[in-house]
C-alpha cells in the first residue's frame, strides 16, 4: 500500500528562483530614502457588468491606496450603430431608433429628432401640437429626473427614496400608456406634430397628479437632506468649475450645477417654453449636491410648465396639414381607402427632404441632445450625427474623478445621469 502511494506522488522540483528575502519587501533601515514599506500602484477593473454603472460601462482605475490616480472609461459595450442604421432608413423610420438612445427619456429623444427634421423642412407645427409636445416632453423630464433621483440615492446607499420616486414615475408611465400605448419606447412624436390627441381623461389625470406632486418632492427632500451619510457623500464630490465645464462641453444640469446659465429652452426657445413662466435653477459650487438640487428644482419647474400648458391648451389640429409629410388622421386610415394608401406610402417610401445641412440642439433631461443631419435630397439622411450628452460627459470623467476615493466613483458617474444606450448609441 505504501509503495503505491509513493508512486502516485508527483515529483516536485522547486522553481529556479532566488530564495525569498525579507529585505526586498521591507527596508530594515528606517532612515533610508526608500521608506519603510514598498508601495505598489494598483489597477482595478470596474464593470462592464456592475449594478451601479447604469448599463454596461467599464472603467479601469489606477489607484494609489484608495485614491484614484487615473480613471479610464472603456465605452462601446452597447454600440449598435444607430448612426449607420439611420443612413439607411427613411426619416420616419429613425424615430423608433431614437427611442433606444436614452431609453429612460424616449420622448425627449423623439422630440430632438423631429425638431431637427422640421427645421430642415421648415415645417410649422400647429399650436395645439406644440402645447402637447411641450407637456409630454416635460412629463418625460419629470420621469427621467425621478428615475435619476431614485437610482442615484440607491447607488450611494440611501435606499428608501427609490421606492418613493418610482411610485410617482409609475403614475407618469401609466399616463404615457394612455397617451400613446407604450411605457418606455414611445415613438409618440411625428414629423409635423404628434401621433394622437389628448383625451379629457389624460388631462384630468394629469391635473390630479400635479395637485399632489409638490408634496411628494418635499417628501424626497426630507428623506435625503436629513440623511447625514447621503449629504456627506454628495457635498464637495465631483467638483468642476464653470470654465472647465464649458471647455469640456458639458451641458444640462451638470453645467448649470457650476453656475452657468445655459438652458436651450431659454437660449433658443422652442415648443411653447417662451409662452409660460418658469426659471432656470443654477448651482454655486458645482458639486454633486448642487446638481441634485438643480434636478429637484427642475422637477418643480417642469410641474409648473405642465400646469400652465394645460391651462392654456388651445383647440385645433395636432399635426401640420402637409399631406406629403404628415400622416393622415388615424380614424380615416381605417375607413377611407385613399388615406390608407397615403399612410402606407409615407410609412414605406417616406418623403423627400431638400438638400442641406442642419444642427439642432434640444434640452433633454441629461443635457443638450443634438442632431446634425446632412441631406443630399431623397428620403433618407445622407449622414445623421447624434450629439449625445452622456458620451460627452464621459469625456470629463477622468478629469473629475482624479483625487477622489474608489467609493466616490459611483457618485461621479451617477451625477452625470448617464445612460449607456445614449453614450454608445
Amino acid at each position: 500500500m505504501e509503495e503505491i502511494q509513493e508512486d502516485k506522488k508527483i515529483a516536485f522540483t522547486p522553481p529556479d528562483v532566488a530564495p525569498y528575502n525579507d529585505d526586498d519587501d521591507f527596508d530594515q533601515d528606517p532612515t533610508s530614502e526608500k521608506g519603510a514599506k514598498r508601495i505598489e500602484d494598483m489597477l482595478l477593473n470596474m464593470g462592464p457588468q456592475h449594478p451601479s454603472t447604469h448599463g454596461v460601462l467599464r472603467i479601469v482605475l489606477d489607484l494609489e491606496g484608495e485614491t484614484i490616480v487615473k480613471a479610464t472609461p472603456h465605452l462601446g459595450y452597447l454600440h449598435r450603430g444607430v448612426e449607420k442604421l439611420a443612413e439607411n432608413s427613411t426619416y420616419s423610420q429613425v424615430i423608433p431608433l431614437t427611442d433606444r438612445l436614452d431609453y429612460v427619456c424616449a420622448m425627449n429623444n423623439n422630440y430632438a429628432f423631429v425638431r431637427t427634421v422640421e427645421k430642415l423642412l421648415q415645417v410649422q407645427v400647429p399650436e395645439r401640437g406644440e402645447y402637447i409636445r411641450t407637456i409630454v416632453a416635460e412629463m418625460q423630464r419629470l420621469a427621467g429626473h425621478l428615475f435619476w433621483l431614485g437610482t442615484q440615492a440607491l447607488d450611494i446607499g440611501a435606499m428608501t427614496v427609490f421606492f418613493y420616486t418610482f411610485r410617482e414615475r409609475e403614475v407618469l408611465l401609466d399616463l404615457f400608456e394612455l397617451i400613446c400605448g407604450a411605457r418606455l419606447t414611445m415613438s409618440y412624436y411625428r414629423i409635423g406634430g404628434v401621433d394622437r390627441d389628448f383625451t379629457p381623461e389624460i388631462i384630468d389625470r394629469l391635473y390630479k397628479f400635479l395637485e399632489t406632486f409638490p408634496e411628494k418632492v418635499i417628501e424626497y427632500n426630507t428623506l435625503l437632506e436629513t440623511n447625514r451619510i447621503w449629504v456627506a457623500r454628495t457635498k464637495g464630490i465631483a467638483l468642476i468649475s464653470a470654465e472647465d465645464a464649458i471647455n469640456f462641453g458639458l451641458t444640462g444640469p451638470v453645467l448649470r450645477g457650476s453656475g452657468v446659465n445655459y438652458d436651450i429652452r431659454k437660449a433658443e426657445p422652442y415648443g411653447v417654453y417662451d409662452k409660460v413662466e418658469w426659471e432656470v435653477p443654477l448651482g454655486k459650487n458645482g458639486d454633486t449636491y448642487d446638481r441634485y438640487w438643480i434636478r429637484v428644482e427642475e422637477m418643480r419647474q417642469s410641474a409648473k410648465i405642465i400646469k400652465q400648458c394645460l391651462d392654456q391648451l388651445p383647440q385645433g389640429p395636432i399635426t401640420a396639414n402637409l399631406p406629403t409629410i404628415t400622416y393622415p388622421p388615424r380614424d380615416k386610415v381605417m375607413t377611407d381607402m385613399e388615406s390608407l394608401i397615403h399612410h402606407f406610402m409615407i410609412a414605406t417610401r417616406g418623403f423627400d427632404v431638400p438638400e442641406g445641412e442642419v444642427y439642432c440642439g434640444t434640452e433633454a433631461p441629461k443635457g443638450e441632445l443634438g442632431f446634425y443631419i446632412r441631406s443630399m435630397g431623397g428620403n433618407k439622411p445622407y449622414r445623421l450625427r447624434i450629439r449625445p450628452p452622456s458620451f460627452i460627459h464621459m469625456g470629463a470623467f477622468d478629469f473629475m474623478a482624479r483625487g477622489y476615493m474608489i467609493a466616490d466613483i459611483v457618485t461621479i458617474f451617477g451625477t452625470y445621469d448617464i445612460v449607456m444606450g445614449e453614450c454608445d448609441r
Partner: protein
Amino acid sequence: MHPISQQIQERFPEAFVESIEALGELSVSVKREKVVDVCRFLHDDPGLAFDMITDICSVDFPNEEPRFEMIYQFYSIHKNRRIRIKARVPEEDCTIDSITGIWKGANFMEREVYDMMGIVFNNHPDLRRILMTEDYDEGFPLRKDFPVEGRGWRDTFEFLSS
C-alpha cells in the same frame, strides 16, 4: 457675408474657403492646415468668444475629392450663437490637427471620429478606438463603403452568401 466670416477671412485670407448661411445657421469652410489657428481665434477672441465645444463629426463623400469633411460645432455662452467650421480631408493623407489643446472635450469626440471614419488626428494625446474594440480590424464603420450589415466572421456564413 456674415460679420464673423468676414473676420475669419480678414484674419486668415489664405485659409478661408467659403461661408454659407442657411436655415439661420452659419457655416464656414476653411483649409485643414489652418483649422487649429481658426479655432484658437474663435475661442480666444473676446468679440467672438466661442468658449464651448458642442460637437465634432465627419461626413464621407466617396465620389468627391477631397473625400472626407470634418465638421466642428461651437457655441458661445455669452453671445448665445453658434458656428459650424468645416474642413476637407483627402483620403491619401487622412490626417488633421487635433484641437484638444483648445477644448479638452474634443478628446473623446476626435477619438470617435477616428474610430468611425478613420481620420487620424495629429498631436492627439490618446488616439485609440473608443466605441469599437481596440483590436477591431474590419475597417471604419461609418465610411460609405462599409456594408450596413457589417464585415467579419459573418461573411463566411454559407446561408448568407448563397
